[in-house]
């Protein structure tokens, strides 16, 4: 079979890292080739070289059998290579059609030929089966649809090789499904696709072949049908990885968190949590499943004291903590892994050591004589936690911003978990974190549970919710619509409820589903 693209022993040296070390990569006509690896393994670098954003220090690139030098993206576009980035490059106030034609505007005299632009965008969307309204404003579109516009933009420029850099990182589970359908449709039309990801499930779901990078080196290329989850995880991490969380049945105790008729408004005054009731017992993990934006963030921030409530009560143990200050809630035995570690969880310019005391900085032994910081104790604390939580590189004085995402998250997790809080809330604890670190964080969550903590887990990853939780609560439109033990849950049922389906309707429909399976 002819190859549309071949990269031969491509090498890229950055000031301190060898990002690509003699990497070979090829792409067949009309295939989806997944490129996987942990953060910092060199996947994006390799594709940036192909798109002309970086220059390689060695190796060669062949497109349709011809050797090419790609000095800049313009050259890549002329070679019919298109790239969709994680962060979209769209002009928000403009329409879909205007964005698609941007850079090669159709003119009628001195004016923009809007009619033809809309027509061409509509034709393109029909041709590839990517449904979209060409007259909609980008700002009004969901993230998933914005991504679709990015893909259309690349296709409009004639892309036959399409590179997608971690396209699913920003999508909800439903949008991921939609994206996969789009990719399969594009493949059917003959487009060759490079799909960068670090999520193994996605590789298995959509790709034809998969190449694994680790620390800049290519570990191997396999046909997707000849590999499996365990195999890929080991190739990525370089050691045996436990994908399924090993845990004993929960031994739940009494209610630690009790929420009664809680209402919370967001910063724009919109009611995001509506008369919500929930309880979490000690020694159990309660997972909240839900499409992002259904009030999970506001719920968590209200418990943490970071957002004022608009009604209702929150109890931690026997104490009512409604609208307490964040410090008081913490001191009552609360720990939080926030959903956005850069925004909330870390002071990126602070050292690892200083970040490891954030929130505990006013407590003994970190303060002495009432006001002075005890640098010895801070250093000792850092050394202990770096060791225990395997934070790399193990340097307490390094600024947190210089660590990888997974290690940054370990700082947050180490700090919060080491306090052995009565109530522990973990929101998106493994977002943007490598396979190896995910395994570690999951183990720690279960360890906290087994020590008697009440754990509230909020995650957009259904797998994570399903594998860690003892009970699952589905949140939709600011309310908990269902709470069920994990063994009564199927992914299918969760998906149905998360999208606003009613439990009764599902029970009615499920009988049919079971009958078919039997």
């Amino acid at each position, binding site marked *: 079979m002819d190859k549309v693209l071949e990269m031969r022993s491509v090498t890229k040296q950055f000031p301190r890292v060898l990002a690509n070390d003699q990497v070979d990569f090829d792409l067949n006509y009309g295939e989806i080739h997944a490129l996987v690896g942990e953060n910092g393994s060199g996947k994006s670098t390799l594709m940036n070289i192909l798109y002309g954003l970086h220059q390689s220090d060695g190796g060669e690139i062949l497109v349709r059998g011809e050797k090419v030098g790609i000095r800049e993206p313009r050259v890549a576009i002329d070679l019919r290579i298109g790239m969709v980035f994680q962060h979209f490059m769209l002009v928000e106030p403009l329409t879909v059609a205007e964005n698609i034609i941007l850079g090669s505007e159709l003119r009628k005299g001195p004016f923009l030929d809007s009619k033809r632009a809309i027509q061409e965008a509509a034709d393109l969307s029909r041709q590839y089966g990517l449904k979209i309204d060409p007259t909609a404003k980008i700002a009004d579109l969901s993230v998933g649809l914005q991504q679709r516009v990015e893909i259309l933009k690349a296709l409009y420029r004639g892309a036959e090789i399409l590179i997608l850099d971690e396209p699913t990182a920003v999508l909800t589970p439903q949008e991921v499904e939609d994206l996969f359908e789009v990719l399969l449709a594009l493949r059917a039309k003959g487009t060759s696709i490079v799909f960068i990801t670090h999520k193994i499930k996605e590789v298995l779901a959509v790709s034809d072949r998969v190449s694994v990078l680790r620390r800049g080196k290519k570990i191997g290329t396999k046909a997707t049908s000849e590999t499996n989850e365990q195999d890929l995880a080991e190739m990525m991490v370089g050691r045996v990885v436990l994908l399924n969380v090993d845990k004993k049945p929960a031994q739940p105790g009494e209610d630690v968190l009790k929420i009664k008729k809680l209402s919370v408004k967001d910063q724009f005054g919109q009611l995001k949590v509506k008369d919500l009731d929930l309880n979490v017992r000690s020694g159990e993990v309660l997972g909240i499943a839900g499409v992002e934006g259904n009030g999970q963030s506001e719920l968590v921030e209200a418990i943490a004291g970071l957002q004022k409530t608009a009604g209702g009560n929150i109890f931690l143990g026997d104490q009512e903590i409604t609208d307490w200050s964040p410090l008081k809630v*913490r001191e009552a035995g609360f720990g939080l892994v926030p959903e956005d570690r850069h925004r909330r969880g870390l002071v*990126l310019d602070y050292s690892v050591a200083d970040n490891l005391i*954030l929130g505990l900085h006013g407590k003994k032994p*970190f303060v002495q004589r009432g006001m002075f910081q005890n640098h010895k104790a801070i250093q000792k604390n850092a050394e202990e936690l770096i060791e225990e939580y395997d934070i790399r590189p193990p340097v307490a004085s*390094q600024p947190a911003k210089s660590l990888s995402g997974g290690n940054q998250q370990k700082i947050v997790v180490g700090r919060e978990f080491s306090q052995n809080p009565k109530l522990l809330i973990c929101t998106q604890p493994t977002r943007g974190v490598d396979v190896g670190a995910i395994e570690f964080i999951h183990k720690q969550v279960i360890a906290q549970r087994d020590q008697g903590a009440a754990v509230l887990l909020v995650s957009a990853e259904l797998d994570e919710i399903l594998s860690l939780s003892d009970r699952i609560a589905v949140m939709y439109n600011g309310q908990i619509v269902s709470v069920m033990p994990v063994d009564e849950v199927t992914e299918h049922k969760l998906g149905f409820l998360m999208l606003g389906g009613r439990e009764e309707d599902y029970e009615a429909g499920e009988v049919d589903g079971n009958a078919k399976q039997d």
Partner: protein
Amino acid sequence: MLSKIKQLRWQEIATPLAAVILALIIGAGFILYVGENPLAAYRILFMESLGSIRNLATTLQRATPLMFTGLAVAFSYRAGLFNIGAEGQLYIGAFAAAWVGFTFTGLPRLVHLPLAIIAGMIGGGLWGAIPGFLKAKLGIHEVINTIMLNFIALYLTDWLATGPFHGGSWVPETARISPTAALTRLYPPTRLSTGLYLALAAAFFAYLVLWKTKQGYELRAVGLNPQAAEYGGINVARNTVIAMAISGALAGLAGTEQILGLHQKFIVRFSADLGFMGVAVALLGKNHPVGVIFAAILFGALQTGSAAMDRLTSVPRELITIIQALIIFFVAAEYLIRRMLRMKEEA
């Protein structure tokens, strides 16, 4: 790893240093343009500002208020606040110190002088706390409020010194302060006073608070990432007020030193932008107390030397203002300089 940290420190110093050198080189072009020898002019500039103990004393005397205002700006900046109100806080502090100085008589020096200093600190501190409070409670940006409060402070002290507390002479100034409230002159006939010690102590205090106390940890966290600070149980509003109050107190001390050390009375509009110069000093000193000390001395030296250069050559003293402006320009253009340094490294 250690070499990396050293490299960082070096980079911190490299930018301001490069900025000064570049500014002097461009300044040399101006000197050539007016037909003088740049090396000779700079020699005079150097000798007349640092070349003898007497000149050094004058330089330090001019640097002292800049140390205070530089520290004021740097301190608030570390907490993420841009205090452009040092000028106003300076005037209020100065008047408060002067008032204690000329109102109370017959107090022993050991009581009177500290009392006047504390009054100056409180005056400036309260004036600084106002925009801090407005920001914390109402979210009004401190830059707007500190600018506005500068005008209020200026006209308020104008009125106080020409109206209710007018000294009675034909000049717009108050009565002289009692000698018991005056700072001691260190090296007469220069007017360098023990205010210098006060400034060094203030720098040490600022360093201690920012990097060695829980309060400093909180202030800097608020400055770097207020949302993470809030999550960590830090009261952002309270820290905003504290940062502005301490910053204002430091600026107030600048005014206090000028009154108790230099003028010995409150003269209307005596400051001539000492507060605004503090912004430049803080910028050049990279918002670090030690950097601020050196930046203030540099600016003091340039001012001292410029008078002599003006006298002894045909280079106008305004050149020094240009050089100061260029220094600030280049520090602000740090990115550009870093690139030039890196290019040199690679070459």
